């Protein structure tokens, strides 16, 4: 029986930039930030109210064992910013939108009423976008 998700990977074009976005702008917490023996950086973060879900901020270069073709394909997708990574939940989409916009966060779309709640689409500047939803 599977009971929960403990780790998930987010591929990012720039690990340092991703740190700034998720930690400094969105308020995620750093779970583990460790320098590995090969010089790479193991960096995991958790959503503010989910301390047991580690999101691995995985840079495309330097850490992954990928063949050239796969690496190029992933790079193209990140450059295009088309990696849809998931849904972030907020108690108030419009207030969070105003706050993040004031911090320079770029949105693909403004808050809109949907049948499941109010939703805006947010980009992390590192190749990924999320739905930011205030559920009904």
């Amino acid at each position, binding site marked *: 029986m599977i009971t929960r998700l403990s780790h998930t990977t987010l591929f990012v074009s720039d690990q340092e930039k991703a740190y700034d976005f998720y930690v400094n702008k969105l308020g995620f917490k750093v779970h583990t930030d460790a320098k590995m023996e090969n010089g790479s950086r193991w960096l995991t973060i958790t959503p503010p109210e989910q301390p047991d879900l580690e999101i691995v901020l995985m840079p495309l270069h330097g850490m*992954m064992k990928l063949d050239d073709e796969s690496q190029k394909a992933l790079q193209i997708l990140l450059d295009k910013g088309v990696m849809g990574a998931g849904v972030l939940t907020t108690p108030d989409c419009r207030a969070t939108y105003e706050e993040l916009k004031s911090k320079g966060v770029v949105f693909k779309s403004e808050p809109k009423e949907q049948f499941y709640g109010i939703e805006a689409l947010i980009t992390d500047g590192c190749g990924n976008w999320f739905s930011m939803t205030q559920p009904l």
Partner: protein
Amino acid sequence: MSHSPYLYQRIVAAKLYIDNNFTENIDLEQISRQAYLSRYHFHRLFRRIYKKTPHQYVTSKRMERARTLLTANDLTISEVSAELGFESPASFSNLFRKESGMAPQNYRSTSLRLIQEVKAQPKRFIPHCFINQYQLEA
């Protein structure tokens, strides 16, 4: 219930004021002034939007900073308390214990031990599949 974008901007401005000044001795009067609203009206709207009262939010920001200060440097508990704008180390310690479930000193020693362990043996804290799949070994 949704509000006008202008009203949101005012509540958000007050929230950002808290984010930038929570270590000072700020009160509801000062915070609500940032939103150009009465204390009562501001309190009601803030709570509706953030699901916390302004006071609860200030406390959560202070506790978050306390946890950072306790693990990031050599400040004494009294210095951390003063840094966060508490009237006395005792009032800080009592609130910290209530919010975090342990005394500040215990939190510091537990966290520092964990940080040292991660630094010394990071692979103990990384699922083995990641070590295998990614180039995490020299």
